[in-house]
């Protein structure tokens, strides 16, 4: 019992020999990793390295072909999703909704959603509550979706490619907001991104994947001390 409790406290995510295949393509290959709690963790790698597949398995969107997954000490399920704020890859918000509708949806369906926090974040991210999703730019819509995740008081936030397709200014604003917000809370955040240059200050742990396999992971400061920067490691690993 003590061991289980310690294990739950220590790790937000634990994967053991996880395999996932889509037809002939092997998305994850015997992936074993443990992600510590209370850190902001970058899941890094080129396209097809298995980042999004890993997140989908964690959220129960897909089932692994083999292996064992634990998230917040439980197997992925709709029950554990109460404690996770998840931004899916290439997600869009519902056409026809206003920002206020989206907040109402989050309040009723996403546990831990704080209306007060969401209003503050909307102000910081310059999103009007009356704005319709149809009339938003890609950057504004991305800010809204990130806001819906970050405004939840839950132990785990998973953001899958939150900066893709967003202009530099929006990206910087989102990252500033995330850094400010995360520094004030005891929360684990998993972020997958290609935009490592801007996102690097956000990360304090990094996991590098390639073709569904773990090739390197560790504390971001230690990795930086050995290699200069995470961006440099990425360039070396995937050159």
């Amino acid at each position: 019992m003590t061991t289980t409790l310690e294990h739950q406290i220590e790790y937000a995510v634990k994967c053991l020999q996880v395999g996932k295949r889509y037809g002939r393509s092997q998305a994850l290959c015997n992936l074993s990793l443990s992600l510590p709690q209370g850190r902001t963790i970058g899941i890094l790698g080129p396209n097809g390295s298995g980042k999004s597949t890993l997140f989908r398995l964690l959220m129960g969107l897909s089932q692994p072909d083999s292996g064992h997954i634990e998230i917040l000490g439980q197997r992925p399920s709709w029950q554990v999703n109460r404690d996770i704020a998840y931004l899916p890859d290439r997600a869009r918000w519902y056409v026809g909704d206003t920002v206020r509708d989206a907040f109402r949806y989050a309040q009723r369906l996403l546990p831990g959603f704080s209306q007060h926090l969401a209003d503050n974040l909307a102000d910081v991210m310059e999103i009007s509550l009356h704005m319709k999703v149809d009339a938003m730019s890609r950057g504004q819509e991305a800010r809204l979706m990130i806001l819906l995740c970050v405004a939840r008081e839950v132990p785990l936030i998973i953001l899958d490619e939150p900066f893709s397709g967003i202009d530099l200014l929006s990206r910087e604003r989102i990252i500033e907001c995330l850094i400010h917000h995360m520094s004030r809370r005891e929360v684990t955040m998993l972020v997958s991104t290609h935009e490592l240059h801007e996102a690097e200050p956000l990360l304090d742990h990094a996991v590098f994947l390639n073709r569904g396999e773990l090739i390197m992971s560790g504390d971001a400061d230690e990795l930086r001390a050995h290699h200069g920067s995470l961006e440099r490691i990425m360039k070396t690993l995937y050159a």
Partner: protein
Amino acid sequence: MSSETGFALLIARDIRRSMSSGKPNRHWRLVYAAAAVLALAVVATYESTQHTMVLSSITPVWTISFYIPIISFGFPMALVMNEWRQNTVGWWLTLPLPRFQLAAAKCLAGVGKAARVTLWTFLGISVLGIYASIVSTHRLDISSSLAFLAAGLRWNLFLLCLCPFTSSLGLVFGTMRQSRWRPALPIAWAACAIGWSIGNKGGKNWNTKNLLGLGHGMITSEALLHVAIAIVASWLLAVLFIWFAAYLLERQTNL
């Protein structure tokens, strides 16, 4: 958050949601609706001046609304497929609600949309029928108007009772299309066609139109009992279909 309020919200949002992003905007929809109303009014006026239209003789016009269970098949199918098309499936399937509730919400939203269409159809036929009768006979016969409306209400309620079944079937087709079971779709269509033809043969013995007061036959309590049993059985089948769709969403979707 209680799962009941979340479930109700999902249904309400899906009922309100338009089926296609390519739909004409509100202004054009109003133009089309006005044109359709005008055309129907012209046809009703012309027909009522050419023939004597007594409401009791035009009661079978209610059978027009037979399309309602058919379109209720399409509603949940489109709602499910739109989650994939509009890239909102990641939000939908990671909601902290059991997949059965997510699937059931789509099915009930399909029934809700069908109920809205039924209401408009009922109002439209009621107004046109009574208008044509007044133009033709130059008087408003209250008792035959009430009988006409009662027959329409019975018939439309009967059709609406069939919608949970057709809607759940549409849900299965929609989820199957997005799952690893997609290659089995032709088999599912064939099974539907066989089921439809068997259902039609059985239905002929009941003479549903008479039974609901649209024809001139006798309404027997035995026949009514048969219809009630068939409706309850169709609802039980609907629950099974929703359960199957939930299974496909849980175990057989490859996202």
